């Protein structure tokens, strides 16, 4: 059952040094505040996982919290580079970052396999590309019915998953809607999961296309209004495009990033 606790308490209870930590939210509902809480917690040697690393992983990578990153597309959408990600890969600053690189289709299927209790997922993907040569979690499998050779990707079962959702009820059941990305898959694949929400309500009024994650598959729920900014929460606030542009500037040099990081650590 999910406990309603503060975000700092949730991180303290459920994240350990060295954990594989998946953070999901496909453009929408990105748990950015959870990333800052991870930085403040001092947890380190994390293996981060996110289809689109976005600002949240750029911050954790720049802060030196990550030893590895599993990802699909590492850019600042509509702005340019994720500078801290690039600096880590190109120059090893502030520490080297091991990459486990996928396509979105491949990575989401790793979550699907993990959520399904299977060792791998089958797909048509990566064929003819250079990605499998650099990634031991991409392989081949022969169909037992047709003999066709297909792509296999290894299941991914993170130690901890972080997502952000619109709301929870007092029992810790969570509801999200709009672009729902891979949040259900990552929570069901992970051993533990922490959800930040905009608010807690008495009753979860159902919405078309919503996703419900029952309290009994979650570890902790924390109320963090605005916890997805500069991403957005449909029904609460819009995507802060200027915030993404500003991150492009803040993250551009080690000096400007470090000034930002000092602010986070002292807040």
């Amino acid at each position: 059952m999910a406990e309603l606790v503060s975000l700092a308490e949730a991180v303290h209870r459920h994240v350990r040094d060295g954990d594989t930590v998946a953070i999901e939210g496909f453009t929408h509902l990105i748990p950015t505040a959870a990333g800052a809480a991870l930085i403040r917690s001092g947890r380190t040697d994390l293996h981060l996982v996110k289809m689109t690393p976005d600002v949240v992983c750029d911050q954790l990578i720049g802060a030196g919290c990550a030893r590895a990153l599993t990802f699909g597309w590492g850019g600042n959408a509509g702005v340019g580079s994720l500078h801290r990600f690039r600096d880590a890969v190109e120059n090893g600053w502030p520490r080297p970052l091991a990459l486990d690189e996928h396509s979105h289709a491949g990575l989401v299927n790793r979550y699907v396999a993990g959520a399904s209790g299977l060792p791998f997922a089958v797909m048509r993907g990566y064929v003819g590309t250079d990605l499998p040569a650099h990634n031991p979690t991409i392989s081949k499998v022969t169909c037992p019915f047709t003999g066709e050779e297909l792509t296999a990707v290894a299941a991914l079962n993170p130690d901890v998953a972080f997502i952000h959702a619109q709301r929870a009820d007092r029992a810790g059941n969570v509801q999200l809607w709009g672009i729902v990305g891979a949040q259900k898959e990552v929570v069901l694949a992970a051993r533990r999961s922490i959800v930040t929400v905009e608010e807690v309500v008495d009753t979860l009024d159902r919405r078309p296309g919503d996703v419900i994650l029952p309290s009994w598959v979650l570890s902790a729920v924390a109320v963090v209004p605005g916890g997805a900014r500069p991403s957005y929460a449909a029904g609460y606030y819009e995507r802060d495009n200027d915030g993404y542009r500003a991150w492009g500037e803040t993250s551009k040099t080690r000096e400007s990033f470090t000034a930002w990081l000092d602010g986070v650590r002292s807040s």
Partner: protein
Amino acid sequence: MDATLDELMTVTAARALTGGTCFVGIGKPSLAANLARRLHAPDLVLIYESGPIGSKPTVIPMSIGDGELATSADFVVGVAEMFNYWLQPGRFQVAFLGAAQIDRFANINTTVVGPYQAPITRLPGAGGAPEIAASCGEVMVIVQQTRRAFVERVDFRTSVGFGDGPGHRERLGLRGRGPQRVITDLGVLQPDPATCELVMTALHPGVTREQATAATGWELRFADDLQTTPLPTALELTTLRGLPLG
């Protein structure tokens, strides 16, 4: 009304969209698809990788997951469903891709410049592109034509165009027809049906063969019936300039 090169590229891409389903990216592809929907292809179904199918945005999104893409969509699916149920079986007719490098067989690199383990430039990576390039009916690439981008051999094959040449897509079992148009700031390249090599089939007004050759890292060939790209009409330009940006 004088069009900028960017506008000419966007309008050229929009004209190639005549209807059906289109898997859209951010930037020029989104502008082109939304322009086409407002002009000659009102029923064009726009699909964004984040999950919205049948989006009808009033504001051109900055990311592939802006809120209005979902609220204006016919329906929204999760990422696993998008790739497994909709993209993989080949339900989408046209898709746009960008490229940091592209070679004569239209293979695309968006991963690294230089060696993978010690890159000179780390690029964003694959995203949805490998499976889009494999499974969409056809692919349209929008890219600036320079020697840096148009290379003899890509440093990393992120997405397959025609692989090593004729018959390679079929041997790999790729279902889509691959890149059918590469739209650049100099003109349009299309694959030669016999050799699969990208050849210049159109030049933008005022662009010379010498300019295109100088901007290409392989020995560029020109189609026998080399065309000149028609300039945007006043209606196309006014509509494009009227699209509000997010």
